[in-house]
């Protein structure tokens, strides 16, 4: 096959695949959402709420619904796999609402149903710090699930919400998988065996996630990929290939986590000061995403590189989106 034909095959594969980005923080995504469809993405898992409390979460969700309504020709909030496939046919970006953290639940497991009714279909258990549910991945104590955490997992299972273990402590994550009746995911986490970071996950946890039927979404934040300020595309694929080699290509996907590149120094320092993250894990801005997929419009390059590195077409379709759809299809139908 000539180089030109090879590129054509990659383009064709990318265009005909249903592509899901498993984590898109909303403050950046609102500004740049057009780059995802430009890169052939059909579904964005949008972090509408992270470490905000319940009251703030309500305003953020209300604002997200207004934003989607004001762009109704371009996007739609979805809560089923059918709706994601229909959105692709209609040329609209499918939006899955995700929480990165359980702060919005405060101490009330019953609020899980409120947020489920508001359309939230993926909830990460912690964000780096300890929460009343469990420890985050930067917390030295390594506490597991609390009693509240078990109640929250019961509600997430009952309602059919994907349990997300990114940013969560290892011990808590393993306990959550054991407690959950449904597949669990790490929506945007990389392999610690490829590059050590408190935000990356062990092979043991990757295996447990895969055994649950879940997947790991590979994160494009350069600080979690390797030591370079801007990682290469191959470095991104290295994490992907590691997970695929360890547990099979049906348990790896993308959750690129495209975020702001140049947050103000004051914003970064407040993030560190408030204990949301440590400077050892989160380097000072500016932040970079891998060369060749610096924003979502360049994601076709990832497909090409995956083919070049020997992934088969069916495996690439899985990585790009079908693996996410399998998990959504397993978890979301409830009651």
């Amino acid at each position, binding site marked *: 096959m000539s180089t030109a034909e090879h590129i054509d095959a990659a383009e064709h594969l990318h265009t005909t695949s249903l592509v899901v980005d498993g984590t898109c923080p909303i403050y950046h995504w609102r500004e740049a959402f057009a780059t995802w469809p430009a890169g052939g993405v059909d579904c964005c898992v949008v972090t509408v709420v992270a470490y905000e409390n*319940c*009251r703030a979460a*309500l*305003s953020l*969700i*209300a*604002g997200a*619904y*207004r934003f989607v*309504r004001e762009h109704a020709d371009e996007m739609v909030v979805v809560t089923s796999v059918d709706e994601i496939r229909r959105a692709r046919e209609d040329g609209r970006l499918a939006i899955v609402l995700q929480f990165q953290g359980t702060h919005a639940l405060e101490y*009330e497991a*019953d*609020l899980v*149903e*409120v947020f489920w*009714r*508001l*359309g939230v279909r993926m909830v990460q258990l912690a964000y780096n710090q300890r929460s009343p549910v469990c420890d985050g991945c930067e917390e030295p104590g390594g506490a597991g699930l609390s009693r509240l955490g078990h109640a929250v997992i019961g509600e997430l299972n009952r309602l059919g919400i994907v349990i997300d273990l990114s940013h969560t402590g290892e011990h808590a994550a393993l306990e959550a998988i054991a407690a959950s009746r449904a597949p669990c995911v790490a929506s945007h986490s990389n392999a610690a065996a490829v590059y050590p970071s408190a935000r990356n996950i062990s092979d043991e946890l990757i295996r447990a996630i895969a055994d649950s039927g879940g997947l790991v979404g590979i994160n494009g934040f350069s600080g979690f990929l390797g030591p370079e300020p801007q990682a290469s595309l191959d470095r991104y694929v290295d994490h992907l290939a590691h997970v695929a080699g360890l547990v099979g290509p049906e348990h790896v996907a993308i959750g690129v986590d495209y975020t702001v590149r140049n947050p103000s120094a004051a914003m970064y320092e407040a993030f560190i000061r408030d204990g949301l993250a440590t400077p050892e894990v989160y380097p000072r801005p500016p932040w970079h995403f891998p060369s060749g997929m610096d924003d979502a419009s360049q994601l076709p390059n990832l497909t090409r590189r995956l083919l070049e590195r020997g992934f088969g077409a069916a495996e690439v379709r899985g990585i790009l989106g079908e693996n996410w759809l399998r998990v959504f299809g397993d978890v979301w139908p409830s009651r």
Partner: protein
Amino acid sequence: MTVATGAAQLHASAVIVDAACPYDHWLENVDRWIAGGVTCCAFTVAGFGGARATVSQIAATYRFVREREPQLRLATSVADIRAAKAEGALAVTLHFQGTNPVEYEPDLLELYWRLGVRIVQLAYNRRNPLCDGCEEPGDAGLSLLGRRAIAEMNRLGILVDVSHTGIRSSREAIAASAAPCVASHSNAAAVHPSPRNLPDEVIRAIAESGGVVGINGFPSFVAPGTRPSLDQYIDHIFHVAEVAGPEHVALGVDYWSGTEQQYEQLLADGTWSRDTYGPPPWHYPAGIEDASTLVNLTERLLDRGYGEAEVRGVLGENWLRVYDEVWRDIP
């Protein structure tokens, strides 16, 4: 009291809606509505608290209903209510008495709509950022925020309720609304004067919008004295039927049993005034002292010459007509 067979049969076959069932009293006494043959309760899930408190009350309501399924079921459509009737279940539709849950963000109305809230009363006696309540002397009309909130309620298909709302605000809300407006639990001031009761002008405006007035059984709003008769309650029904037509009157009985301490607190907060609200104990109209005996209302309406179709209307069909016209599945 023995109920005539015809009345009992009519009552048993009718869809019956009580459009005002306040929070704690209803939660503690829901069996009375079931015993009284009621098909649907508009449950006042919130109104006084801000958004944060409101979502906890809604979450607790989901749990309350879930723990009593299939006897209770949440309803957001007339089809849900008719299905409840067919299954012998009690349909619960969520109602706010007041717009404090909206705070200053009309965008929150879509969240409440998504949570199942289908009826929102604009004020509760006092002033709020949207408009005045009926005990507010200034009688301010709708604010700019109030107009935005009504437009949002219209877009979403949330029923606008003007019980407890100031006269001018009610008039302006009805004029601003593109959909029928109701007073879920308000009586006729022409029958018994009270700041909580409606002048004929507002009753007519509600009817012209396509809405309904739900007649309230709280003693201070029915008649002088502390022990209203069933006939005095029915006098309000007949008055509204005469002024606006029998298709514009229904039930919103507002059963509540507060303690002396709760009463004093409501007065101290300025939520109630002593002039408008008599002290407890409160005696609801004789014969329908609680919701379990509502069949006596059906019998007495027939005795007083109200036609069967009109009785079905007042018991529930008039509410269903308005709900069906206003509520929507998709915003």
